[in-house]
């Protein structure tokens, strides 16, 4: 079902944990649907110096979270904003079709964190059914 990369990151997620004094925090997903993701960023100039996550959800949700932190870390904010859900799925050697929609939220989470950084507030976006 899952690619080896997904399983590897699920078992050994990188950059996992809460961040102390983050510059931006984005929370996306909805635990009612089984996935909730928080992405923390630390910004240095126009670059993401650090990216961390915490995730409630399936193996795919955890792996995509881990992947986004790796993809984003060190990138400029402009470049980080260019990372799409598809990029994440691709980097993971694909996700099962059923997981593409609900569990592949990490790019959204990153974008939300960056928005939070810009607006100087936490941003929370529930994906479906819930007010933002």
């Amino acid at each position, binding site marked *: 079902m899952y690619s080896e990369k997904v399983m590897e990151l699920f078992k050994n997620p990188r950059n996992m944990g809460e961040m102390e004094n983050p510059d931006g925090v984005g929370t996306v997903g909805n635990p*009612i649907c089984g996935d909730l*993701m928080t992405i923390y960023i630390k910004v240095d100039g126009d670059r993401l110096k650090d990216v961390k996550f915490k995730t409630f959800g399936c193996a795919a949700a955890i792996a995509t979270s881990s992947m986004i932190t790796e993809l984003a870390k060190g990138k400029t904010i402009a470049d980080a904003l260019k990372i799409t859900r598809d990029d994440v799925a691709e980097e993971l050697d694909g996700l099962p079709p059923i997981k593409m929609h609900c569990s592949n939220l990490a790019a959204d989470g990153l974008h939300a964190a960056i928005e939070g950084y810009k607006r100087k507030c936490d941003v929370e976006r529930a994906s479906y059914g819930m007010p933002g």
Partner: protein
Amino acid sequence: MNLRIIKDEKMGSVEEKMKSAKKRVYLDHAATTPVDPAVVDAMLPYFTRFYGNASSLHAYGREAHNAMDEARKNVAELINAESDEIIFTAGGTESDNIAIKGIAYKKKKGYIITSSIEHPAVLETCRALEREGFEVTYLPVDRFGTVYPSNVESAINDETILISIMHANNEIGTIQPIKEIAKIASESGIPFHTDAVQSAGKVPIDVRRMNIDLLSLSSHKIYGPKGVGALYIRKGVRIEPIIHGGGHERGLRSSTENIPGIVGFGKACELAKKRMDKDVPHLFKLRDTLIPNTVNTIEESYLNGHPKERLPNNAHFRFTAIEGESLIMSLDDEGIAASTGSACSSKKLEPSHVLMAIGLNEVEAHGSLRLTLGRENTDEEVEYVLEVLPEVVERLREISPLWKKEFEIERWRKEMEKR
């Protein structure tokens, strides 16, 4: 430790091979069971030697027919029915469909009473009938998953054509008071169907004493082969077929009979009956090690389903702040095969209808784990699970943004209540 080590020469990738050389503990017997070696032995001659079509007149046909008669007797005996009250089907789902649509199509219209925690084979069949103009009531259950006979009684009206309540739930293992319910049905002259796919071989069933008119069985839940099942139809109960053809199984289920499968199922029933005295206490012992040790060891862990009226092999837990699939995948990585609930729904994204029906909210429902034991599980395997499970839960809670976030959880709970 005497764990079964399975060495795998047949499977594909190196990764798979490595994995299967590890300890493997199968705790998903509600999804399906291994076929008992004695069952395989019984089946084997019917593939290559006694391979006739049971409808054929010649010796090959008669061999097949005799084997089927023998199997029918074994199935009947497991539930104290007569041989000619048993028809063979392709599985529990087909049995449920034939029973429910069979009565509905015979009566042409009317009102069906079932519960909100039935297996999809019953629920989706009822929903299909609703689209065709039948009316259906899905009775609620209490927080343990029990259907109240008094609720059945008050749901009955003049148009009621069928009451279908499962014997034991496939997710949380709760056993229903079907004897009481069947009595009510019988007193009202309404046919009573029960899905006994999970209970057969684990809880004694006597269709006579229990007043059951229709009862579904599935072979692969009781150490028989997949793709075979049976429907018990009490003498005198009339149903319409849903599969038409050569008129096999008294016209109720046409198709060349699956003789090896039927022979295997018959053998599985014979074994189930014979071994019940030995298997059930064994399951109780394992289960009653597993349940208290889990809920006592792991913080914020809870048992779902009925504390007493539950299948001897079922342990169904809920852990705050973690999601079921990631729990299954983590256990799998440790060689433990488990499930979040019913096999067929675990790939879906909606929370289990059973857990919602017992009053859990969506987040709680997502955090569930079903461990279902089998006759070949050992004390050592349970010990191993009790060792691994707390570590896995802890790891996932570390990753979770909800763990120890009462405030967060509370917020979501409120959101859910608003809906």
